[in-house]
Structure formats: C-alpha cells, structure tokens
C-alpha cells in the first residue's frame, strides 16, 4: 500500500492528461455526474458510508485523470475478482468490490470474449466441416468479429444501464459503475466455455453452454439481491436478469458454434 503512494504523488494526475479539451471543474459535467448537487449520493456503496473522495476527482469528460479512479486496481485484486466470479454461490461480489469498482475488468473481459468467440467460432466451423465434408472449402469468416463485437459490447453496456435506470426509477439505491463492473465480471465464465465449445459433439456443446449460462446467471441474480428488497416488482428484475444472461449464453452457442 505504501508503494502505491510512492507512485501516486500529487502531480501524477497532471501527467496523465491527454492533450485534448479539458473541462476544468465545469458545472455542466459535474451536474450531469452528481445529479445536480453535492448531497446527491451516486457513487457511494449501498451499505457503507458515502464516499466523498471519488466524486472530487471529476475533471470533465475529456480528461483522463477523471477516469483513473475507476482503474485503481492491482493485478492481484483483478485476479481475485475474476476467480470469485467463477463461483456463483455467495452473493457478496459487491462487498468484495467495496468502494473500489473497476472498469478494467469490464473492458478487457469483453474484449477477450469478442476475440475468443470470433477465433474459436471459426475454428469450430472448420472442425465440423472437416469431419463431415472432407473438403477444404472453409474460409475464415470475418463477419464473426463484427457479430461478436456488436453482441458482447452491446449486451455488456446496455443491460447494466437499463437495470440501473429501472432500479433507480423503482426507488432502489443503485450505482452504475458497480453494475457495469459486476456484469463485466459475470461474462468471464464464458471465456473458458468458448474454448470448451470447440468440441465438435453437439450434445456436449449444449450441456457445456447450459452449465456455463446457469452459473453466470446465478452469479448475476444472487448479486443483484443485495440491491433488491423483497417486493414482487423487484423480484421480476431478478428473473429478467437471469433470463437475459441465459439468452446471451444461447446466442453464443447458436450463432458462433452452430
């Protein structure tokens, strides 16, 4: 911990700035972020106290230093979160994040998943074609990259945002960054799954994807319960989250590994 303070000496936030338009403490961006006032709780964790520190670093949309607060993790922290996302039991992911949600996991897990789906999807069609046709008419389909990128990036951005707004509307105390973080880490189980789906046996593929989809959906649902009370409306949210994650799993199987 002390080593990080050696690196993060007070002028480090200046060095990271990209030479573009820098909005220094502009009221518009601050208002957009904080909902209009300092007293509005946006980034604080639901059960712990209000974390004043994270709001003070916002220096405008175009300054890199205002986003570094979301990447303030070390290698072992990321690995720890990754491993905990593989075990769907135990809904304590948000406690594990604590006051330090990171977007590093979201960005690089989704990017890795896009690459894996495009690469292994192509390999799988190659293997199946070699088994059945014995011809070499297979060619690399670049459309898989487009489909994977649209599907995975779209899902991992739209679904957390939609849940954030819905839960806010229904009165619960949600935080966008923590939702993005959790959904990002929930996708990590699909990476070894994509590798396993190379096996050209159809029934085995379905079993694998159903297991992985169930694990991932349980992870998402169990962690959402910490934001949701017992009322029926919010229980529908949990079921919706479960179904959406299963739909993503089935989409992965059906599109990339037909």
């Amino acid at each position, binding site marked *: 911990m002390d*080593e*990080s303070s050696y*690196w*993060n000496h007070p002028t*480090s936030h200046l*060095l*990271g700035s*990209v*030479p573009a338009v820098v909005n220094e403490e502009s009221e518009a961006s601050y208002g957009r972020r904080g909902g209009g006032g300092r007293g509005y709780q946006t980034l604080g964790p639901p059960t712990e106290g209000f974390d004043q520190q994270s709001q003070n670093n916002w220096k405008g949309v175009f300054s*890199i230093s205002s*986003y*570094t607060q*979301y*990447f*303030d*993790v*070390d*290698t*072992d922290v*990321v690995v720890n979160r990754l491993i905990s996302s593989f075990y769907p039991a135990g809904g304590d992911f948000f406690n594990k994040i604590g006051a330090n949600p990171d977007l*590093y996991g979201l*960005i*690089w897990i989704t*990017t*890795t998943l896009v*690459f894996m789906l495009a*690469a292994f999807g*192509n390999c799988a069609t190659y293997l199946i074609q070699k088994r059945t046709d014995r011809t070499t008419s297979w*060619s*690399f*389909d*670049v*459309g898989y*990259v*487009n489909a994977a990128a649209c599907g995975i990036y779209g899902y991992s951005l739209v679904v957390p945002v939609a849940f954030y707004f819905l839960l806010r509307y229904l009165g619960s105390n949600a935080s966008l960054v923590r939702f993005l973080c959790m959904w990002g880490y929930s996708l990590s189980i699909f990476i070894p799954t994509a590798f396993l789906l190379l096996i050209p046996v159809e029934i085995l593929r379905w079993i694998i994807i159903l297991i992985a989809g169930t694990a991932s959906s349980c992870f998402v649902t169990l962690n959402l319960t910490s934001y949701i009370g017992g009322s029926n409306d919010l229980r529908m949210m949990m079921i919706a989250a479960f179904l959406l994650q299963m739909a993503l799993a089935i989409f992965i199987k059906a599109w990339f590994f037909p």
Partner: protein
Amino acid sequence: MSNSHSDTIPLRPSNSQSDIDEIRSLIDDSVHSGPAVVLPARHPATTPPPSSSPFISSNIPPPPPVSSSSSLQKLQSVPAAPPPPPPVGNSSSIVANGFGPPPNTLTEPVLDTVKRDLWRIVSNLKLVVFPNPFREDPGKALRDWDLWGPFFFIVFLGVALSWSASVKKSQVFAVAFALLAAGAVILTLNVLLLGGHIIFFQSLSLLGYCLFPLDVGALICMLKDNVVAKVIIVCLALAWSSWAAYPFMSSAVNPNRKALALYPVLLMYLSVGFLIIAID
C-alpha cells in the same frame, strides 16, 4: 512585458514603432549574415519534448551553412547536401543567439525529406525491434518517434492479410486496420488509466514499430501455404513482437500493475497472429 524598467526610466520613447524598427534592423542584420526568414523566438539549441510538432525533432540537422554569397542566392539554391556543420558566420551577430536561422525543411528537395524520414524509420526500427543497450530506458529508446513507420507497417499488414484472403477482402483489410489502429490507441489509454507515465504519441509509435516482426511473418505466410509452418512462423513472430514491446510497457506502470498493462498488448498481437494464420 519584460520591459518593466522602461516604465520608470524612459531612455527613448517606448512605443510600438520603435520596437518594430528594432526588429526590422535585426532582420536586416540577419539578411546579410544568414537566411532571410526569422522565426519567432525559436532557439535551435533547445531540445523540445518529443510530443511537439513533427517539424522540430531532437536531432534535426543544424541550419544551412553561411556562405559568402548573398542570401537571395542561398534561398534559391538551398543545399541538398547532408546535414552541414553549424554556421560559423552567425556566431558574431545578435541574430544567432536570439532568433537563429530556422531549419529550412520547407524549401529542401523532396528527396531530402523522404531520405530523412526513411532514415528515421530505419533507426527507430533498429532501436525498438533489435537488441540494443537502451532497451530498459524508455525515455532514450524512442526519443525521436515518428508515426510514418507505424503507418506503413499497419497498412502493409492489412494489405498482406487482404491479399491472402479469398473472400471478403475489403472486410478483412478493414478489420485488420481498425484492430491495429484502435488497438494502439486503446492500449496507450489503458496504461494512462492505470496510472502509468508514458507519452501518448511515443507509445503509439512504439506499438506500431513492434508490428514489424508480424509484418515479416505475414509476408512469409503469404508465400508459404502450409498450416503447420504458418503456426510456427506466427508463433516466432509473436514472441519477437512481445519481447520488443515488453520493456517499454512494463516500465511505464507501477510494478503491481505490470500484468494488467501487458495483457492487452499480448491480446492484440495474439489476435493479429490468429488472423494471419487463419486467413488463407
């Protein structure tokens, strides 16, 4: 701004006209002893940071030598010779220390510019991709960065991939180009977001130069069509690229976050390597 003493001790009427006259006299001096163009307060001896405008680099050739002929003649026959020694005749005049003769890159022959840029690309390549004693020090390794080299390497890789593709050629080129260009930017942003200290364009330049081994691999794969040979060649090229990029990336961040900064680099080169193998 700096003539604060003139407010209290008016030695001469300090209005703008006299300042203009003084500048004009300095210009006249420089006409007789150096090139006719006077740049606004740009000292040739200072070394600007690498991320400044591309016309000023740290090893820019010194200004053309002072000849005894008139300056007009010199403008028409700008020297096509290799970088000349610093002008001796200017040292006595006030102009050399204050304004200085400018680097005349706008009026030199095109072949000179091309040769100089090519030489810079080659020397940067030697620094980055091949072993040299400056590897561990990122500040020295690519002090004279440029973006021409990365541009050539990315376009060459896209063209090579597109050439060897049998269907959807233009889509293959688009994917390769977008992947590499956007990937370089995103990798640099990743290091900056993790709290590392690198210069944006220097990092873009370095990641582009590290593509050179993959370019060689793609070229060889274009010629040979055996899958096993392709896998071996691409693996070697990948290892070489990663070895080239490793010291720069890892020294830019906190040691606790080294793996977080290096993993995306590996991912990008791996995906490019996969594209090279799979496209036939």
